[in-house]
């Protein structure tokens, strides 16, 4: 009698039959019936109709029956919430049971029932269980908090379970500690801002003690948690390392890798001269090697991580080349990873061995693997100069095998070798040309054509060869077509006499018969170059090409540092930071390696901010390149802005400053509390989603105008997004001129030159007033500070949020895009005081249809806003009903509501700015004048045009 009998009942009245059996008086029959139900459930049959009958079986002393019913409940409670309530009483009763196993089982099962109504009843039993005398119950309850948080986060916070959970970290039982850490880590993942795992030396000590005694899984949780901690100094780091090192000998590979992560991270803080540093390096190698004798799936993950470790600290595994040699029975995914690491470890010392292996691999059967092996030979040649000759001869041997894909792959890598060592191995060209006909892949054909073009003067029949390719020009892929065009032009420049016809032919093919714009444009460029100035053409086309860099596939150092912090996680498998692929991107805190010397960690630069804490960066503000490109493309589709470009004079003249005059004196006053250093960038990052609150927060910056306040520099463009160029900056206004203070840091390995900057069209027409001046080339690790003067004469387009500025920066490497939010105060002019009469007149000038009234609801108050609220109240009492006029519909962000003005009719727009100011008396004075009109240069005149286009009214303006 086996369980398979449960699967065989496929009769029509199955459900009916089961129902009858479930209601049977006989215990045994009941149990059999429940078993059948579970069996159907496991294979995905719908047995939810039996819910009430199964729940009836729950009141039993039989533990197995109880468990089976629990299993059923967990699966179906969601679809039958009302019925599930019936089970609550039994749960509550079970939580009081003298047997801790039953108590734990009850609290565990309750947490798995994802029904809100049940969750409420769960709180009391859970609270008891968290303080239970039995550690087994406590540890189960700890996990239950995480479950509950997943269902109803607010409830968990309100009930104070998080604090209880934090207390459990100092529990006497290591298993409870481990589960508390696991639960907290999971909760923290969905709440990146909350400081749930606030680690200090005391709690670290407790964790380290628990680490020795808890289960292997608990060790993983604790180690991952330790990795988020940043020790105070190198001594603390060393003592943690010492206590973590024994974990390297654990049988569970996940424990080993988590320990490796902690060590790799904390090693960063140790000085290299330390004896201990060397010992640690030595201790890291054997466990990593042992990981490679585990199951292939484990090997794969381990290899992906070793790939990172080898890039960061090649010294660890430099003597272990042999373990990365491919075994014949490795799965293909392991083989490919091993190959990658072999190349990374290749050096002059072991190159002979590596080459012999690679040559062997190139004769294997698996096509993908063979291709990669051939590529690897080429990479060895580029990496280890001394071996280049041997690599080339190996490749030639492989070409002799005449295996089609081997030959093609070999030709592609030989092209790279030519780029690296020009004029050295041209003798092999003849051999390559023999295989011309067998090439059928575009990449190989393109590579071959490039070689022919590049060395046209040494190949007697280059014209014939190229001509033969030209015959099927239209059937070739674009890659080949472009290469062919260039190669023939090169040929022409080298042997002008014989090849005139050929070049004519290819140019006409490229420009007249082709649909591909790239090809056509390149054709025209060559054509014009050749027809106007052949000498210049020669200089351009035959210019000396930069040598290709040694290792093109190295991970950027900044990204690598970040990934080291993610060893053993999915991020390390994909070699991408979690922000790049974790769902929603929410909850991702950038991690960074701790600085080497902990003493100077305080202020200096954002990249030395403690790991785990949200660093001063504002990654969310910067759209990915793709998004931004989309934005830039959309430019043309937006409402066309007609009318003359804005004149500078009108800006100056019409500009009236909201906060000028009386307020000026107050700003520097004692009441004013400067925002904490990081406030502005933090606000920018946090409120990206809603332009509404965004602008509001910005006003904290507005209060500091007249050049008195300059926000600290924030990182606008992290180095990992811009191939090593890091840009941080801020905006300032000083004596009437706006400028953008930039700090460019080169974190790449190569020199950067040719900087240029450009702004996208933006709401206020901000544009650089002078080109970006970087006088000397920026060498690696160099930082330069630049102040870029700005004006507001650029073209105007409404942005969302209003103060969004999209910037493109170019250098010799690439073009990079980022966007940033500028504080509005930089746009306000200093001489903006307005006479009361004039203000009233201006108000009246605004047509009535632009007036809108609305009520603001549900605005949470915070302490900082309370002051401002007082200001609003005063206004409100004086004038219960302020009129709000949507003066310019095209500037929704400007007509700001006052969120603090809870449940009150208030003038929105203009009232907002003064209301936000802490200087209440000044505001009150002005509010008697029905608010203060504000002008921002560059907006006023333009608004008329904007309003003539139908722009949807922003949601918050509607009543």
């Amino acid at each position, binding site marked *: 009698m086996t*369980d398979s009998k449960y699967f065989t009942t496929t009769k029509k009245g199955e459900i009916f039959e089961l129902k009858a059996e479930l209601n049977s008086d006989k215990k045994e029959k009941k149990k059999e019936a429940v078993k059948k139900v579970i*069996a159907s459930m496991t294979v995905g049959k719908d047995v939810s109709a039996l819910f009430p009958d199964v729940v009836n079986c729950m009141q039993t002393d039989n533990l197995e029956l109880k468990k089976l019913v629990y299993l059923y409940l967990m699966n179906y409670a969601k679809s039958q919430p009302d019925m599930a309530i019936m089970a609550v009483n039994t749960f509550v009763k079970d939580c009081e049971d003298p047997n801790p196993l039953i108590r734990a089982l009850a609290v565990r099962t309750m947490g798995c029932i994802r029904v809100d109504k049940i969750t409420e009843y769960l709180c009391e039993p859970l609270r008891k269980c968290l303080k239970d005398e039995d*550690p087994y119950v406590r540890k189960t309850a700890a996990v239950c908090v995480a479950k509950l948080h997943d269902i109803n986060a607010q409830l968990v916070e309100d009930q104070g379970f998080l604090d209880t959970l934090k207390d459990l970290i100092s529990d006497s039982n290591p298993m409870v500690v481990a589960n508390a850490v696991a639960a907290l880590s999971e909760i923290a993942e969905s709440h990146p801002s909350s400081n749930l795992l606030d680690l200090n030396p005391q709690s670290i000590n407790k964790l380290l003690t628990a680490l020795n005694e808890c289960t292997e*899984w608990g060790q993983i949780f604790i180690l991952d948690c330790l990795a988020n901690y940043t020790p105070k100094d190198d001594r603390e780091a060393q003592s943690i390392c010492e206590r973590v090192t024994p974990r390297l000998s654990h*049988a569970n590979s996940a424990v080993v890798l988590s320990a490796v992560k902690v060590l790799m991270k904390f090693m960063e803080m140790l000085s290299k001269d330390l004896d201990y540093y060397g010992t640690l390096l030595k201790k890291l190698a054997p*466990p990593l090697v042992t990981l490679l004798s585990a199951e292939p*799936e484990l090997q*794969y993950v381990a290899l992906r991580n070793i790939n990172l470790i080898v890039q960061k600290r090649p010294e660890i595994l430099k003597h272990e080349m042999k373990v990365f040699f491919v075994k014949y029975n490795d799965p293909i995914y392991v083989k490919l990873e091993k190959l990658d690491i072999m190349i990374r470890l290749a050096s002059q010392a072991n190159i002979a061995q590596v080459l012999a292996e690679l040559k062997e691999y190139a004769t294997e059967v698996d096509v993908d693997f063979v291709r990669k092996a051939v590529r690897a030979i080429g990479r060895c040649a580029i990496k280890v100069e001394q071996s280049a000759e041997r690599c080339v001869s190996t490749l030639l041997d492989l070409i002799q095998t005449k295996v089609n894909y081997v030959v093609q792959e070999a030709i592609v890598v030989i092209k790279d070798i030519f780029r690296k060592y020009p004029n050295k191995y041209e003798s092999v060209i003849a051999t390559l040309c023999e295989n011309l006909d067998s090439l059928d892949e575009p990449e190989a054909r393109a590579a071959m054509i490039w070689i022919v073009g590049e060395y046209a003067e040494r190949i007697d029949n280059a014209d014939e060869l190229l001509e033969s390719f030209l015959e099927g020009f239209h059937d070739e892929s674009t890659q080949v077509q472009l290469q062919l065009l260039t190669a023939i032009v090169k040929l022409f420049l080298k042997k002008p006499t014989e090849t005139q016809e050929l070049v004519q032919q290819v140019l006409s093919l490229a420009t007249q018969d082709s649909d591909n714009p790239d090809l056509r444009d390149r054709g025209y460029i060559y054509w014009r170059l050749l027809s106007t100035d052949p000498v210049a053409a020669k200089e351009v086309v035959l210019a000396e090409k930069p040598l290709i860099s040694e290792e093109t596939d190295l991970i950027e150092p900044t990204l690598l540092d970040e990934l080291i912090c993610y060893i*053993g996680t999915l991020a390390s498998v994909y070699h991408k930071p979690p922000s790049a692929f974790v769902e929603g991107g929410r909850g991702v805190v950038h991690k960074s390696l701790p600085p080497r010397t902990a003493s100077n960690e305080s202020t200096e630069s954002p990249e030395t901010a403690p790991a785990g804490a949200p660093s001063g960066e504002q990654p969310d503000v910067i759209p990915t390149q793709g998004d931004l490109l989309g934005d830039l493309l959309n430019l043309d589709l937006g409402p066309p802005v007609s009318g003359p470009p804005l004149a500078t004079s009108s800006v100056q003249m019409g500009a009236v400053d909201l906060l000028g005059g009386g307020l000026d004196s107050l700003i520097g006053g004692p009441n004013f509390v400067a925002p904490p250093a990081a406030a502005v960038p933090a606000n920018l990052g946090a409120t990206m989603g809603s332009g509404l609150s965004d602008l509001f927060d910005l006003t904290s910056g507005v209060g500091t105008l007249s050049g008195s306040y300059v926000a600290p520099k924030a990182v606008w463009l992290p180095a990992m997004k811009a191939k090593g160029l890091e840009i941080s900056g801020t905006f300032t206004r000083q004596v009437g001129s706006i400028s953008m203070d930039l700090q460019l840091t080169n974190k790449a390995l190569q020199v950067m030159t040719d900087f240029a900057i450009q702004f996208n069209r933006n709401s206020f027409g901000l544009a650089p007033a002078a080109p970006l001046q970087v006088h000397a080339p920026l060498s690696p690790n160099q930082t330069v500070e630049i102040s870029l003067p700005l004006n507001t004469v650029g073209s105007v387009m409404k942005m969302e949020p209003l103060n969004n500025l999209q910037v493109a920066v170019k250098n010799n490497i690439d073009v990079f895009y980022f966007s940033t939010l500028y504080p509005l105060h930089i746009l306000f002019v200093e001489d903006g005081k307005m006479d009361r009469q004039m203000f009233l007149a201006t108000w009246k000038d605004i047509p009535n249809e632009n007036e809108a009234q609305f009520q603001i609801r549900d605005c949470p108050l915070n302490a900082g806003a309370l002051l401002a609220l007082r200001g609003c109240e005063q206004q409100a009492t004086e004038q219960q009903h302020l009129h709000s006029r949507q003066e310019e519909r095209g500037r929704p962000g400007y007509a700001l509501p006052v969120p603090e003005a809870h449940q009150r009719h208030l003038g929105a727009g203009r009232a907002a700015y003064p209301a936000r100011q802490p200087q209440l008396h000044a505001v009150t004075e002005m509010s008697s004048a029905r608010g203060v009109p504000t002008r921002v240069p560059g907006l006023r005149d333009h608004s008329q045009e904007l309003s003539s286009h139908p722009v949807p009214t922003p949601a918050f303006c509607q009543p």
Partner: protein
Amino acid sequence: MIHSLFLINSSGDIFLEKHWKSVVSRSVCDYFFEAQERATEAENVPPVIPTPHHYLLSVYRHKIFFVAVIQTEVPPLFVIEFLHRVVDTFQDYFGVCSEPVIKDNVVVVYEVLEEMLDNGFPLATESNILKELIKPPTILRTVVNTITGSTNVGDQLPTGQLSVVPWRRTGVKYTNNEAYFDVIEEIDAIIDKSGSTITAEIQGVIDACVKLTGMPDLTLSFMNPRLLDDVSFHPCVRFKRWESERILSFIPPDGNFRLLSYHVSAQNLVAIPVYVKHNISFRDSSSLGRFEITVGPKQTMGKTIEGVIVTSQMPKGVLNMSLTPSQGTHTFDPVTKMLSWDVGKINPQKLPSLKGTMSLQAGASKPDENPTINLHFKIQQLAISEGLSYLLLLLCGTHVSLLQSAPVSG
């Protein structure tokens, strides 16, 4: 943490699913099937597959894919280790882990999975605790259960779960106290034509079966522990003592467990206990080649070599082979060109040999490479890595009869 688990057979049917959090639709496995189709062989399915909302991590064992679904950033090794543990547990419970067996015991499987994870967090993964919670099905128990109506589920709180030695239950009693230690070593070695070793490394494990009463505290010492390059221990081993004294001190779990696995690398001299003499010649013009191999013992310290199997991948040009072995049986597959010779025991007086001719493709040139020969063998009671061969077991408390068997396979 781990969201769900799907068990998929090699023909692509999901025959079991288990969810620890909310239910994930089984359509998520479509991504897995895609990857499965792309990979030519089941072994080549990549272990980590991203889908738009989930990640699928899988292991392939016993012709079954165990696919775990995760949604958040979870250490992949953690998941994969856990999946392997699941397979081991099934094997432990049912003897074999196969689709029919899992289907036969689906309720036990479901109960075990439920006990192993809670909300995706591992709960009880030690097999002796699991067995206390849910008793493994045996024929006798099934009969008894049917008659008495009792169940496979234990109604006692597994005491081990609470103690500081979670791997051992309390109150164990045996009339015969015994402990077995198996040292199993695998040598991976490459030997060149002239017989010198190019690389050699040893992967070894010590598997133990301990049946002792009470809470025994064992100490195991090695003659030459320095030989071990890297070791990984069962959690019961006290690491501190190993670090300082190179002595294994532990309270063993009850029953079978892997005490230690170790790695001895090529830096240490490894004496290979067998040798192969070969004489394989292809002649350019002729369509016949000669083939002769002889296997003999070397440094075995008087132990017999058993279970010898010689396999060799012949070059493509070989059409067929006609060979006569002095002992054992041999086969040659003309399609895969794989020669396999099951030798059996080696008698040092009369060395086994395999002689004969190969018929080669007419006109084909001489193959570039000589065929490689793989050799599998077993030696009882010998450890290649000297120093492990002498074990000294101290036991505080009761007396035991110590039995040791040490098969070596290469």
